[in-house]
């Protein structure tokens, strides 16, 4: 170990690596295509492990749940312990199946209502530190997923694909401050600009594009289709508050997304929008 003198080699390496990181960040922010192929390669390399670890975690979580059930059964009546234990084990497995069945059925029902061709995908990665609002799903270009494809939850829009590799894709959620889309009030047909916010409660912001348009609490907001990215008519959320903008002219306020974005496990990706809808 070197002692008492500056580590020049270390400082040189640090400066070089920091410069490389800063260049990568600048490239990314400026949207240079160089980071996208690198992303695709890395995500393709990460896909198998992420899939395995995700499955492993689910298995362990289920096992822990079963063990917890087992412990609670032990505290029950001694005579019924064995029987109850078996029932709990069965029930825990059954509940899991029922919950999954319900989730998938809701997803299937919703996908059948949609006029678009969709593929179901599972969330395999997400930034755990809440610094960024994006998720990674287990479907990519091999399944027909393209950049800018709309991504739906159980009951409405949750985001769009910002980058697609062979087996996985990154989805920017509508709560991301970088996200903006063209929306419409379902009843009055007023056009809105809907943008992500940095709010911890997950609400997103809207502002009316026409000064005369009025929006009310409870109004349902859908995509307008005018932005050219999302098909029209996809549910976005419900207006929860309305106020005047800075100049006191147009309505602005907050929307609660139709789908909770905190615990998304499965999503639908629009791989082919209905021609009549676009």
């Amino acid at each position, binding site marked *: 170990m070197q002692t008492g003198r500056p580590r020049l080699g270390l400082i040189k390496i640090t400066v070089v690596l920091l410069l490389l990181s800063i260049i990568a960040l600048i490239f990314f922010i400026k949207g240079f295509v160089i980071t996208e192929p690198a992303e695709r390669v890395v995500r393709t390399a990460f896909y198998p492990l992420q899939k395995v670890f995700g499955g492993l975690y689910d298995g362990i979580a289920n096992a822990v749940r079963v063990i917890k059930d087992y412990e609670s059964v032990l505290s029950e009546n001694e005579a019924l312990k064995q029987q109850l234990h078996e029932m709990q084990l069965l029930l825990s497995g059954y509940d899991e199946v029922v919950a999954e069945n319900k989730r998938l059925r809701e997803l299937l029902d919703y996908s059948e209502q949609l006029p678009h061709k969709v593929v179901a995908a599972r969330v*395999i990665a*997400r930034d755990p530190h809440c610094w960024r609002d994006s998720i990674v799903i287990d479907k990519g270009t091999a399944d027909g997923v393209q950049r800018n494809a709309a991504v739906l939850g159980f009951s409405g829009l949750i985001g769009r694909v910002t980058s697609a590799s062979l087996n996985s894709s990154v989805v920017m959620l509508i709560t991301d401050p970088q996200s903006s889309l063209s929306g419409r009030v379902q009843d009055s047909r007023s056009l809105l600009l809907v943008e992500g916010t940095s709010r911890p409660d997950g609400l997103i912001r809207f502002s009316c594009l026409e000064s005369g348009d009025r929006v009310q609490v409870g109004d349902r907001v859908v995509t307008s289709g005018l932005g050219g990215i999302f098909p029209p008519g996809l549910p976005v959320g419900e207006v929860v508050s309305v106020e005047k903008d800075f100049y006191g002219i147009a309505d602005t306020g907050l929307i609660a997304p139709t789908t909770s974005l905190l615990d998304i496990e499965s999503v639908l990706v629009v791989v082919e929008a209905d021609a009549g809808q676009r």
Partner: protein
Amino acid sequence: MRGGRLAVDSQVRAVVTALFWSWLIASIETSIVFRLPPLVSSLNLPLVATLAAVLFVSPEYGVGFAFVSGLFCDLAIGSSVGVRSISLVLCAAVVGVAQDRFFREHPVTWALLGLVGSLLHDLVCAAILKLVGRLPVTYLDSVRIAAVGALLNSIFSFVCLWLVYLRWKASAKSFPDGLE
């Protein structure tokens, strides 16, 4: 000639080992940690692995490891490439430069490094993301996340670095080919 070739082989092995561990740690970080309960999801595996690499392999190796694992995490998540590698490289460099000034074989050192490293990492991350307009949380929330993360990573570093330390002691205080 033969000695030079052996040195190159050893360096190649060290790079491959670093890439493998970075890949493994970034995969766990991006695919499992976000599924944990909110309080525990502030665990920072790449940071703790970086601290282990700096303390028990070499500061230069640790800085390189920090860069690769940070970049892998950013690329695997697909946004703001470079943010995490900047903060991890800074953490590794600070610990590496100051390594001679503290007792690196003491458990309290590991806990403190986990605490300070986590705070530094999270606040640098938040500052860069704010600077480029991509921070999806408020200032207050970013401080809260950083504080909870610091406490958690302090305990986590203590446990993990103790295990690495025991392994390091058993291998005659030498990991010539990386964190094997």
